[in-house]
């Protein structure tokens, strides 16, 4: 058949390229940005600065993993930053009162999953738009965070807890960076090789066709929110461990950084389109850009202009290149 003939003519790379145009574009932009910063700043390409970037992006990265999952179904999770805040606060307070690090971490993760589950149930069972549900949840969680802590940070967390994020493989390269990187690979594998992954894309692409193929679409719309809540709680644990204290402002406005990174990575707001590779690129791009502005001495007041414009330009570029094809 004609299929076989053309298969030979088109290499694997061409097929990959056709399906990953935004990843390739943004990957290219990341490389260019990287090279430019290497040239104009003597401190950019130092191991110290590189680990600095990793440290800066690590929390956004964890949240972005959950966010990608949710956005692939056509949803959105605005509560990730606040969930990070409330779960880390609850964990820290438990740690101080019970002295049990293990229990505190378990409760932290469980709480994240439960909040995600509430989000997911409201979206999947009651058809409330995800934007509204998670916007409400964002406010509730942040408020609960302040109420619980009375507005004060919880300090002096146990050394055993601090050791989780404190452990280093090499100078400045912490163990938990590696954990996050492995998490990226794991989520990528799940998305491309399991039913959960395929259904996630399928629901974002055509929920009715998914249902008619015998898939429990309500369940599989719910799961991404649980994963997102869990990721936010993991972010909370890592943040508390890294700084040895938990402030009620932890995670504030992280949902916006996360969304920006995920969207830059090629995730469609309407669902069904996006990859973990893209999200990784998006997170790194935003991290490198922010870091580049810092080390080249650009005023912090200008940084929003830069990152915001990049976000809009990235999507504008994608739309313009897409339009030509029609």
């Amino acid at each position, binding site marked *: *058949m*004609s*299929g076989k003939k*053309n*298969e030979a003519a*088109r290499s694997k790379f061409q*097929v990959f390229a*056709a*399906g990953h145009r935004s990843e390739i574009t943004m990957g290219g932009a990341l490389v260019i940005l990287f090279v430019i910063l290497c040239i104009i700043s003597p401190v950019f390409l130092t191991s110290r600065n590189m680990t600095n970037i990793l440290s800066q992006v690590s929390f956004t990265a964890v949240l972005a993993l959950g966010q990608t999952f949710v956005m692939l179904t056509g949803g959105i999770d605005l509560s990730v930053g606040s969930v990070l805040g409330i779960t880390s606060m609850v964990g820290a307070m438990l740690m101080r009162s019970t002295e049990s690090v293990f229990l505190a971490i378990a409760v932290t993760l469980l709480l994240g999953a439960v909040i995600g589950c509430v989000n997911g149930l409201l979206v999947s069972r009651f058809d409330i738009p995800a934007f509204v549900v998670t916007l409400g949840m964002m406010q509730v969680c942040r408020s609960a965070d302040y109420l619980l802590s009375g507005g004060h940070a919880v300090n002096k967390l146990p050394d055993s807890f601090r050791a989780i994020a404190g452990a280093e493989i090499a100078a400045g390269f912490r163990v938990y960076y590696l954990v996050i990187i492995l998490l990226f690979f794991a989520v990528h594998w799940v998305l*491309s*090789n*399991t*039913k*959960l*992954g*395929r*259904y996630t*894309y*399928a629901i974002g*692409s*055509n929920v*009715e*066709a*998914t*249902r*008619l*193929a*015998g*898939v*429990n679409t309500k369940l599989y719309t719910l799961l991404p929110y649980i994963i997102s809540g869990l990721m936010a709680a993991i972010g909370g644990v890592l943040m508390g461990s890294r700084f040895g204290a938990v402030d009620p402002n932890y995670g504030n406005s992280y949902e916006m950084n996360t969304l920006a990174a995920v969207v830059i990575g090629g995730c469609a707001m309407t669902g*069904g*389109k996006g990859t973990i590779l893209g999200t990784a690129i998006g997170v790194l791009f935003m991290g490198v850009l922010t870091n580049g502005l810092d080390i080249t001495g650009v005023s912090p007041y200008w940084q929003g202009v830069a990152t915001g414009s990049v976000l809009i330009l990235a999507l504008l570029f994608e739309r313009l290149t897409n339009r030509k*094809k*029609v």
Partner: protein
Amino acid sequence: MAASGTPILKVTDVSKAFGAVQALNKVGFELLPGEVHALMGENGAGKSTVGKIIAGIYSADEGSIQFEGREVKIDSPAAAISMGIAIVMQEFNSMPHLPVYENVFLGHKEIFKHGFILDKGEAIRRTTELLAMFGMEEQIQPLSRLRDLTVAEQQIVEIIKAVSYESKVIILDEPTASLTQKEADRLFAVVKRLKEKGVAFIIVSHRFNEIFEISDKITVFRDGECVLKNVNMKEMDEQKLVRAMVGREIKDFFGSKVDLAADFEKRPVLTVEHLRDTWDFIQDLSFEAKSGEILGIAGLVGAGRTTLVRSIFGAEGRKGGTVRVDGAEVKQGDPGDAIKKGLALVTENRKEEGLFLDFSICQNMAFAKTANGKPYVLPHKREEEDCRGMIEKLRVKLGHFRDPAKSLSGGNQQKVVLAKWLLTNPKVLILDEPTRGIDISAKAEIYTILHQLVAQGVCVVVVSSELPEVLGICDRVLVMRDGSITGELNAKEASEEIIMSYASFGTAS
């Protein structure tokens, strides 16, 4: 006024590619004022693409378009409309929540006072006038919301919209696909009346009888090229047309029924008893379908055929009654259970309910089988083998099986949906309007596949509005009207007249 004089529209050497697929290759034709010009060809032949280029929806890669003797560049639908070119498409382009009159007049600048306030009274008055022209003023109220109308009525509104622009050229892309014969006749009466006034029509259709009834000239496409150009309809006949479209003669269009008597007994596999749907439209309906038979379900649009098959499959809930496959009861409202028991449903809207347009062809085909299979980790290798097998078996025309489903033509997309369900190895395959908007050779291929399945003992249930199709492929026909079965016919005793009589009046004569 007879069609004569200089062409109002001249399309010359237009080419267009979508990715690796060359949809059009240097095609062209001429349209005279007051002429009805048919564009025919199989699905994927490029006829719809030409219409969309003229209407400014797609832009051509090369070639030229002359309108009223001047070379023009039509780079947007708005540009086409302001020139006097309107299109009525297969997929509606309307706003379901707005009333009919707003749908019709939203694009009209002249009806807005001071440029932005809609003159409601005037819009309603003119909508009523237009509806009267179609004899539809009783059925469609200008103030009803579009979503409350039937698909056929919505189609009429789309056509009224095109007429309302006082266009010089109107493109009708499959205008009668969802219309009843009566509604189609009304449409053609309007076409004839506008034709007298010098309006030229381009009509894209798969229905031979209407093409011969209404057209003056014809241009035939095959694989993106013109095989016949501006031919006078008087010089054409059906045989010639089919030959031109497929490049060969299709013998035995509906395929041959395989004689099974020797191989196995026909036993009932699908048993529906006292079915009641969620809206009480169908209140008490029972029937049986046997292995090795093609059962047709005929009836007019709105008779409840789609609701029936959807509630059998569980796409919609049931309020009462039982559905059994091989004796095993199928849960209500649970497609997963239906699939497990051996049911499959090819729905009538492939884009809305069947396909994942951004998924690869392979992922689309494998979706249902994998979803209802054991392993939680996706069996990529098996999926690929299944997909290759299906591409071969169904003769799907594609670039690469990793290309997205949206890169395919309508007929090939339908084959992908069919493949998705065939891979689940159904005992009962239900198809709702399986050949709507599909070209004849894909149709013939699908009929052949259905006959093969039946020969293997599968039970096939076909819902169809095309009576020749029902008569051509089915062994037995059920006719529905207002949510009940009004007639059951053997293929031998059925005729279009008898079916229509059961469908319209509920009796044989």
